[in-house]
């Protein structure tokens, strides 16, 4: 489980960034909220109204322990619960890559929330390109911990392909934040090639 721990550590920078974006007292829904760490932090720092959604009972349990409101159901069921613009923010941190229907979920999120944060591991990162070039297969490392035979199916999103998706679907990118390969320092130069992690704030045009 040390790999997972490392990922949680890496995600701290993302958490800090999201905490800066979200306003005091905002209504926030976290899709794929895991153990509710981000939401508990937002409640603590920004006194938000928080709701997490997850499909894993073990994670729901930890989120309940943190005192976070959670729905134990699939993401689309959760989104369908709410009227248009019922939330200020929907957060999809490291979630979109695991969805079978990313476009539908992003569109539903943009219906339910005024602003949506999408965070993902950038598959266009140079290391992945070299890995494929020299090893002839998908990366297996601390981030992509498992090979194809045991990993969950994952959409390989890159910074540029996400921008193209937004362009094609009339989605406005309000803010973006890229982290280098260590997921700590910001990445300002050629993010599609050099960013390890990407964070976008999007809204309807």
């Amino acid at each position, binding site marked *: 489980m040390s790999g997972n721990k490392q990922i949680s550590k890496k995600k701290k920078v993302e958490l800090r960034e999201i905490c800066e974006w979200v306003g005091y007292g905002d209504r926030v829904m976290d899709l794929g909220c895991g153990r509710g760490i981000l939401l508990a932090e937002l409640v603590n720092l920004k006194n938000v109204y928080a709701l997490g959604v997850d499909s894993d009972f073990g994670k729901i*349990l930890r989120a309940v322990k943190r005192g976070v409101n959670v729905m134990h159901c699939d993401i689309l069921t959760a989104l369908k619960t709410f009227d248009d613009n019922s939330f200020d923010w929907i957060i999809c941190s490291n979630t979109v890559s695991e969805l079978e229907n990313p476009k539908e979920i992003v569109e539903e999120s943009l219906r339910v929330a005024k602003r949506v944060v999408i965070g993902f591991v950038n598959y266009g990162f140079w290391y992945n390109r070299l890995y494929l070039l020299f090893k002839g297969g998908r990366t297996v490392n601390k981030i992509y911990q498992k090979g194809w035979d045991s990993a969950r199916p994952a959409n390989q999103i890159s910074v540029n392909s996400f921008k193209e998706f937004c362009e094609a679907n009339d989605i406005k990118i309000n803010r973006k934040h890229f982290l280098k390969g260590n997921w700590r320092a910001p990445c300002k130069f050629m993010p599609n090639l050099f960013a390890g992690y990407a964070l976008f704030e999007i809204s309807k045009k």
Partner: protein
Amino acid sequence: MNDFSTDVLEESRPGEVGIVAYSDFHSSEPLDFALGGRLESFDIRYETYGRLNADASNAILVCHALTGDHHCAGVYSINDRKEGWWNNIIGPNKPLDTNKYFIVCSNCIGGCMGSTGPSSLNPATGRPYNLSFPALTVKDMVAAQARLLDHLGIKTLALAIGGSMGGMQVLQWAVDYPERVRKAIALATTSRENAQSIAFNCVGRTSIMRDPLWNNGNYSADTPPRFGLGIARMMAHITYLSEKGMEEKFGRQLRQGSDSKFAFDSGFEVENYLRYQGSSFVNRFDANSYLYITRALDLYDLRAPDGTLETSLKKVKARVMAVGFTSDWLYPPEQNLEIVQALLRCGKDATYAEIESDLGHDSFLIESPKLYELIEYFLEA
């Protein structure tokens, strides 16, 4: 009331509440029922475990299901082998921890375990109420419990918790007395009975009412409508289990000593089990109470006259958690989720969790570490 010794208190492993006794609360103030009837006075039988703290802030109300009662933990004597119905969850260092909380459970009004119900004597006539007992709703059960809490000096509940009909009461509590409930846990329940559940209750009631001994509700205590009530219980019991659970427990196993496969009165083990459930139930439950309470379940509907749950739920102040069980087909998971969805639409603090279980509707009564953790975490968070 409870009897645990101090050395048990020191340890952190789960203990027992030990030997308990019930109490009776007599209210000489009248109780007006939601559908118009009235009792000039009434009794509520209840049990408590743990100690109420100085500011009366540590009380937990446990609400029982259709055929449950006030005896939810402990035993009545050393020789008593049957513990209260939720003994696995209530006790020192258990999820409902009697070291920290004062736990109250009462027999619902209309019941037959000591609280005033159809089989109680009407003081005005000296005869049992039978069908002259007021038309009953879940709202009345909760109103009677509120009187008991007044009597015990409890203004606010740290938690109201219950499954099935107990869950309905918990939700009714949160709606009718929003200032008095800080947290609420509703398990395996619904915001209103659907046609299927009403249909099952209808079969049970018909079975009782077609028993000649029922006699329009005017049977004597020695000759109750045993067959009608027994069959009602047998059928209802099937709805508390699941196809998979029954298959695992009984399969097609034949009853031991059954010599003929074609004897109608014996044969498969599952038949034997259901007959036992039916006949043992008759000894502890009153047929008229069964009619009244199942009718109260059918009438239960948290929706406001405008047809929405939101209009009633917007009064709620408690943090609510609803829990569904995957194999529960009486009050399926979606009906529990629906309650939380409506609360969230009103901007309330609400949580929905789902527990995988093969044990059907009765899952909430059966030992489950997942449920224990969920309750404990929600209560302590």
